[in-house]
């Protein structure tokens, strides 16, 4: 019986797959920067015998091969959806949830007691200055109804209890209940594609902070809210679930302080000044969150000549503060963020 040539198709498919990826690698233009990973991609490493023998050339070449792999983001997406299909939701640290939420898995508690001790020590040393602490709960804790059936436990309740026990010299502001109420009422407190709270969430936190800091919070109607589309945040970028629709990001402006506000960004020797709390150039990017106070900087000073009082505030923060501090700026002549 004559053997059919069709039996060679698996072999041909195999060879075509392997060699076309190889050819594509050599032929396609090399990318310099990955916007989804927010890092520079490895370019062809320089060869030298020293580099070869120290292992540096080998390492860089391997990174070069994987960083410039043809269709990289497509493959990452395929891997994420595959893991989801085999029941492994959260394999990359992000849960694919209902209602298009992409939620971080629970954070580890390795640094918890160290950090709480440091805060308590700081408050003890500076007892002449009132210290207030506000901790943002996890998205997975507040929005627990959208989580997949199998997920790791969010231990926020246990953590908050330990905060209240350990942090005695400070004013601890617990936003859990307020957030849960707002969320149950149908308001979006956290972004779906990012780990931060929304402007509404930040506003809720701002209201909860007011008794501790002693200001009268502005009513919502004071703000002009502008909504911007196509916000692809951090959880989107690291999840690989490229088919999830983007968020909208809202900027709440209080025009009463137009012209009176000055933001100084200090990076080492450089000082740059900006006359607005919001840095609109970031709205051109996928990750629009840095529109609030220009994103992550080590040291920023926000001054408001039209503030209600001439008090000064020091905020030791993570990026959640960026969307909260604009609300606070109406009540303090100067806010320093570290």
């Amino acid at each position, binding site marked *: 019986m004559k053997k059919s040539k069709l039996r*060679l198709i698996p072999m041909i*498919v*195999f060879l075509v797959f392997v060699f076309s990826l190889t050819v594509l690698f050599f032929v396609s233009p090399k990318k310099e920067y990955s916007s989804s*990973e927010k890092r520079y991609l490895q370019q062809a490493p320089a060869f030298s015998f020293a580099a070869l023998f120290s292992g540096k050339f080998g390492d860089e070449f391997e990174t070069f091969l994987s960083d410039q792999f043809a269709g*990289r983001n497509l493959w990452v997406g395929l891997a994420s959806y595959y893991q989801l299909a085999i029941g492994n939701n959260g394999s990359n640290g992000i849960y694919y949830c209902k209602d298009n939420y992409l939620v971080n898995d629970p954070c580890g508690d390795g640094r918890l007691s160290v950090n709480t001790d440091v805060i308590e020590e700081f408050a003890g040393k500076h007892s002449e200055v009132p210290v207030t602490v506000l901790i943002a709960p996890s998205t997975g804790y507040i929005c627990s109804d959208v989580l997949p059936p199998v997920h790791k436990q969010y231990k926020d309740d246990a953590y908050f209890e330990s905060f209240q026990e350990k942090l005695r010299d400070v004013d601890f502001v617990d936003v859990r209940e307020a957030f849960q109420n707002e969320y149950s009422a149908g308001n979006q407190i956290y972004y779906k594609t990012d780990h931060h709270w929304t402007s509404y969430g930040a506003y809720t936190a701002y209201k909860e902070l007011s008794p501790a800091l002693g200001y009268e919070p502005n009513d919502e109607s004071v703000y002009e809210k502008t909504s911007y589309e196509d916000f692809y945040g951090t959880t989107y970028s690291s999840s690989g679930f490229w088919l999830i629709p983007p968020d909208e990001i809202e900027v709440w402006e209080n025009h009463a302080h137009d012209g009176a506000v000055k933001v100084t960004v200090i990076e080492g020797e450089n000082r740059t000044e900006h006359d607005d709390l919001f840095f609109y150039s970031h709205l051109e990017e996928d990750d629009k969150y840095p529109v609030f106070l220009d994103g992550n900087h080590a040291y920023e000073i926000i001054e408001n000549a039209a503030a209600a009082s001439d008090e000064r505030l020091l905020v030791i923060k993570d990026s959640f503060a960026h969307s909260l501090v604009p609300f606070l700026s109406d009540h303090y002549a100067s806010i320093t963020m570290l």
Partner: protein
Amino acid sequence: MTSTLNYLPFLNIPAFKVPLPIGISFYTFQTMSYSIDVYRGDAPMQKNIITFGTYVSLFPQLIAGPIVRYKDVAYQLDHRRETLDSFTKGVMIFCIGLGKKVLIANQMGALWDAIRESGEANGWLGSWVGIIAYTFQIYFDFSGYSDMACGLGNMLGFEFLKNFNYPYISKSITEFWRRWHISLGTWFREYVYIPLGGNRKGTGRQILNLLIVWFLTGFWHGADFNFIFWGLYFGLLLIIEKFVLKRWLDKAPAFVSHIYSLFFIVIGWVLFYFSDLTQMWNYIVSMFSFGSDVIGDSAAASALSYLPMLIVAGIASTPLAAKLYGKIKTAKFIWVPQTLYCLGVLAVCTALLVSQSYNPFLYFRF
């Protein structure tokens, strides 16, 4: 190894770091096989240095085996024929190996990592799930690489011997070692056990020979205490089986034999994995601490997330898929499932491997 030797009170050798060349265990044994086979007259001397070099550095199986004895491959080095059919066969076997490694072994490895991380809080069931994951990982990793080696060999016209024959369906430890890492067992039998006299010099000598072989088997895997311990553990089990348990095992129902074998195989992997003897002991204790939790939260979440893959791994450890494939192998349309399988495995494996290098520098915990 120096840290092991330094346990002897009078020795204090400074540990000096020797970077070991990759695959050293394998090609050391291969070159020894050449010398021994030629000496014994089992194969003619190889006069061509390039052919000899090919044998020693045969890239498909250089790093992870199977250990190819010179006499098995001597003829093929100069007289093999590369055909399209053997190439296609090689492609299929290679893809099976690739699937075993990336789709199964790596997943099981991730589960094992997750369970080890939640350490104390796993509960006895959690600990069992963990070591079962490792049991699957090591099999699919090793047999996956062996399959890829055989597949590449086929593509080049070589026919290598199978290294694994569904070891986890064994009904005894004796059977397990005829199905696991076959090329290593064969090497030790041919070049150590039989030359030492095997079972031809009385029972006492046979037991000694077995202990020597198993000590060396353990040592071949690594110069740490736990590997030697692992080797001797199996040596002892084999001796007990051969002289005591055999009668009962032969009469026992299959179900009992399977559970008995798997139980000791899985415990064996605990010995193999932990080079720190304290950690090893703690892990074994956690597997049998029935007083406390059945399974911790974190371990339960991990176990459930990987449950589909655990089931797939279990089924893939049996010849079921091979039997089903055997029924349709000669059909004319067989190229269709073969092609779909190859394409599927290549695509998913590429995706999983690329995503491992995906490294977002996001300010998550900022």
